[in-house]
């Protein structure tokens, strides 16, 4: 059903190109349209997520949450966005201008680029790269540079400490993050998201069943990658006031803020795709005949809800405990998981 | 030990170290100590098991400009024996100097800094005698009775 919609939209686009006389560069235009559509969708989705986070936290804290702007306070984030964008851009005089300027943009763009390869439905994907998994890991590693630049160029001690913490954290947690995907790649022999989902469709089970260990390690490391509580030590407001974005305000702060949420979306989308079967319907609910992207979004929202629930339940880990958890718990577990999976794959003769 | 017993015991034990020991109208034991025996008395009060004043509850000072003295007041408490004692040390108001009890009770560190800050009593041997409440470049001692901060204080009728 999803691809039918895509076909229909593509047909409309063809007609539009023909009308405007742009048919010769249709290929490039398609890409641009896809990118803009993805950007718009993710932006709106992130705004919704900010609202959702506030509602979830309110629910957990027995409050009501935003309920003034729009129905159920749905437009609250919009109001916040307007406030942030019209705010005066206060910045330190002795900042390092170029990195200070680049950092929020980089943090924002790098995470956004990750969404490009995630399939929303069968054949509904902006760029179905053969190396999609690798691409996401590579492109999200840009955020480290962004955060380090932000921390360094702000000329603020809290920011610098936050930048260090963040760099150490992201570099450490990237290892278990990648290692927890590796078993899936070993089983499927593919680095392409669509192929991984198709494999799950053919196999008749989702990878969360045989690979639940990998699923949990992935969620944990993805939370850490996105600097979310309980791993939010880089911005730990009770210690470092705001960490690397202490000195940022207005639009630049909004970019970091959005970047963090997009990172959550990307991690959840990846988890939903490779562990929860992407656009595949829930078992025993296939009769509903809902479009694939509804299933996909439901799974993404479920994982995002998990991550939000973590944030409002747990205290923050200390920096050395965080490193201990990453290096002494997550990495050995993931490596062991890879080893076991390798044996099983060898025995059963699965894989590429 | 009741306060009366405590008073008579101190009277007999530390005859050479104290100037006077009285039972106040509120039944508190007030000891005025000889300046040279201040540290020795405090150490004895803390270490001797009969007294066991482990806890320096409070250390402050009172300014008596008419008698030209500042009295450093220590309030001691024993957690085990549950009795209270007030030790007083008179220092010269023009040149206020007192030995520090910081080595005996670490808690005295900040209390003495506060007294130094607000009364100007110099505690000799204190490891870190700086102003604690007022700015470091402040010249006056606000809790002295003759303190005026020209134009800043509006006296209530």
């Amino acid at each position: 059903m999803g691809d039918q919609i895509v076909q229909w939209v593509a047909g409309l686009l063809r007609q539009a190109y023909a009308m405007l006389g742009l048919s010769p560069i249709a290929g490039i235009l398609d890409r641009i349209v896809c990118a803009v559509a993805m950007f718009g969708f993710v932006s709106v989705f992130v705004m919704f997520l900010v609202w959702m986070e506030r509602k979830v936290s309110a629910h957990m804290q027995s409050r009501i949450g935003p309920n003034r702007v729009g129905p159920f306070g749905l437009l609250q984030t919009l109001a916040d966005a307007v406030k942030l964008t019209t705010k005066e851009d206060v910045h330190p005089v002795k900042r390092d201008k170029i990195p200070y300027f680049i950092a929020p943009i980089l943090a924002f763009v790098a995470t956004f680029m990750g969404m490009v390869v995630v399939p929303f439905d069968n054949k509904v994907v902006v760029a179905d790269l053969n190396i999609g998994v690798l691409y996401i890991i590579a492109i999200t590693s840009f955020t480290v540079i962004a955060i380090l630049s932000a921390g360094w160029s702000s000329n603020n001690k809290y920011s610098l400490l936050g930048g260090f913490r963040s760099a150490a954290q992201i570099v450490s947690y990237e290892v278990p993050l990648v290692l927890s995907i590796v078993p899936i790649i070993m089983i499927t022999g593919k680095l392409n998201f669509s192929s991984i989902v198709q494999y799950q469709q053919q196999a008749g089970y989702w990878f969360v069943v045989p690979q639940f260990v990998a699923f949990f390690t992935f969620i944990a490391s993805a939370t850490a990658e996105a600097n979310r509580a309980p791993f939010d030590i880089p911005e730990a407001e009770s210690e470092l006031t705001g960490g690397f974005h202490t000195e940022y305000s207005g639009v630049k702060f909004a970019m970091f803020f959005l970047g963090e949420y997009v990172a959550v979306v990307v991690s959840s989308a990846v988890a939903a795709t490779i562990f929860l079967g992407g656009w595949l319907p829930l078992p025993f609910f296939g009769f509903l005949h809902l479009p694939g992207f509804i299933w996909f979004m439901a799974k993404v929202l479920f994982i995002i809800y998990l991550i939000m629930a973590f944030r409002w339940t747990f205290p923050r880990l200390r920096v050395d405990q965080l490193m201990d958890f990453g290096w002494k718990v997550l990495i050995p577990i993931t490596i062991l998981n890879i080893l076991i999976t390798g044996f099983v794959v060898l025995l059963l003769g699965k894989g590429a | 030990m009741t306060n009366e017993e405590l008073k008579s015991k101190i009277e007999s034990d530390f005859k050479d170290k104290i100037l006077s020991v009285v039972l106040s109208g509120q039944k508190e034991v007030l000891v005025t100590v000889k300046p040279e025996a201040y540290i020795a008395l405090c150490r004895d009060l803390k270490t001797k098991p009969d007294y066991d004043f482990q806890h320096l509850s409070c250390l402050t000072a009172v300014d008596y400009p008419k008698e030209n003295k500042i009295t450093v007041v220590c309030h001691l408490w024993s957690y085990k024996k549950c009795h209270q004692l007030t030790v007083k040390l008179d220092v010269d108001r023009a040149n206020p100097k007192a030995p520090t009890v910081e080595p005996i009770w670490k808690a005295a560190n900040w209390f003495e800094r506060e007294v130094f800050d607000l009364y100007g009593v110099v505690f000799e041997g204190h490891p870190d005698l700086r102003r604690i409440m007022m700015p470091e470049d402040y010249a006056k001692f606000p809790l002295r009775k003759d303190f005026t901060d020209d134009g800043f204080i509006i006296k209530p009728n």
Partner: protein
Amino acid sequence: MTLTLFYILAGVIVASALLVVTVRNLFHCALALAMTMFGISGIYLYLGWEFLAAVQVLIYVGAVTVLIIFGIMLTRRVMDDTARVMNNQVLISFVAAAAVMFVLFMVVGNSSFQSNNHPPEAAVSAPVNETQNPEPSAPYVDEVALLAGGLLKPQNGFAFAFEFVSVLLLSALVGAVVVARKDPS
């Protein structure tokens, strides 16, 4: 069209590489280095080696540059931009650089390049995505398998070197742990 893309990429690479050696602020140097590495991955992408491009970004931008920035931030004072670009070893380093460049040119000149579009013994498979690539796409190449085969197949003779390098890396890792570990006493 595609050639223009190459020239843009090459321009970015050369410009940022020049920045790396000329800018006085070490942190800016590191950022320029990241830019260079990213440009190089663009070249890989341009040549059709998606895997290599991703790995280039992952390792050189995501890891090596971050390590360098980390080192800079740990060793130098914040916002201190008085790094000297020249010192008395400039001549020696110029000679060394020239020698390296000469060797590289020799190697490059003797190599016969093949782009991904004409793979030598490609593991060609059917394209996965038909609707998303409106223009006739190049035959889908499982380049990861290709790369793995090239590295690990015994007849290519790289298997031993590959294993050797991984052992080397492991020993480096162990060494780093030993150095970084504090004395238990």
